[in-house]
């Protein structure tokens, strides 16, 4: 038996609940009434245009070169903003004692991390390298390699890994890669036959994907390392 005593709630809670319910009902009814025309296909026009492009043999690369590329660029900008905020804050923060960064002392975690990390890294690099032919992409590959390094950091300690990866150099490389990718994309706006279709129909796509993968790996590692280093402080 559910107790439906309304006086338990404050007027603000009841008001919020009513507004959210009205929003849900109106949106669902509107969608149900308007869905008579079958499926929504926004990008069909672009897909059909891909077949007419010269020198493109692969529809994944067609979709990627035509509009996923700009999407990825702005994803990179958002990701860089988040990583930059965390980098700035972790520079301002005084480093605490080493008790919060000690590793998990377990042989199972240790052994499985050192066994799994090469496989995870190779899988991520493969995803970034073959993103013009199938599913994947530089973003997904970079995040996978970064999570693999996080596994290693949990197993053998974040400080050891942080020293091994030369964080200061990595931060510089990150922004150099961002500038490089943006330069290639802006060149592609004016010279698409060189950037997207030159080099035997491949263009610079492998270089750009690997660069994006490296950048996202560095950003992921920056963010995750910060949270591993400061875990247990809330």
């Amino acid at each position, binding site marked *: 038996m559910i107790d439906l005593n309304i006086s338990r709630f404050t007027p603000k809670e009841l008001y919020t609940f009513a507004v959210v319910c009205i929003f849900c009902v109106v949106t669902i009814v509107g969608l149900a009434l308007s869905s008579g025309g079958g499926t929504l296909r926004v990008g069909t026009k672009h897909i059909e245009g*891909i*077949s007419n492009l010269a020198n493109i043999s692969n529809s994944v690369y067609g979709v990627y070169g035509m509009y996923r590329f700009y999407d990825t660029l702005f994803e990179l900008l958002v990701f860089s903003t988040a990583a930059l905020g*965390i980098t700035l804050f972790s520079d301002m923060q005084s480093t605490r004692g080493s008790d919060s960064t000690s590793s998990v002392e377990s042989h199972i975690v240790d052994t499985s991390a050192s066994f799994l990390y090469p496989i995870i890294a190779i899988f991520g690099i493969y995803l970034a390298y073959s993103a013009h032919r199938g599913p994947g992409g530089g973003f997904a590959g970079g995040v996978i390699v970064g999570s693999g390094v996080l596994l290693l950091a949990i197993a053998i300690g974040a400080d050891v890994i942080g020293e091994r990866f030369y964080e200061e150099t990595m931060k510089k490389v990150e922004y150099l890669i961002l500038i490089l990718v943006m330069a290639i994309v802006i060149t592609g706006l004016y010279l698409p036959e060189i950037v997207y279709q030159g080099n035997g129909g491949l263009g610079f796509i492998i270089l750009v994907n690997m660069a994006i993968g490296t950048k996202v790996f560095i950003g992921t590692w920056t963010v995750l390392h910060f949270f591993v280093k400061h875990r247990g402080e809330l």
Partner: protein
Amino acid sequence: MTTLGTAIAIITVGIGALGLILKKNLIMKLLSLSIINTSTILFFVMVVYTPGDRAPIGELGVTQMADPLPQALVLTAVVINFGVLALSLLFTMVLVKRYHTLDIQKIEVSVKREFDEEKL
């Protein structure tokens, strides 16, 4: 388009909005924000789902190709969720270090008191 799926996605957005407005714990607010983001992704998937669509991988000229535009939007949504969560967890850490509580009302009272003391 699946009407049941979109209805579930919209109801989940409502649940997330209720948590975002009514919960007083900052971490719970961030979890509700994450629920809203996930249900937005569910909404995109449910709106464009059509039985029999194929991914345009491999050769050219696949008939009944799946629409790639919502997939790109979903990727952007995932990345933005990651960035927003990371930055707001950072700000939560800053607030907790300064005021030693997660309750948003107590933090507001403390901030207001500090502001009044500065003005005097």
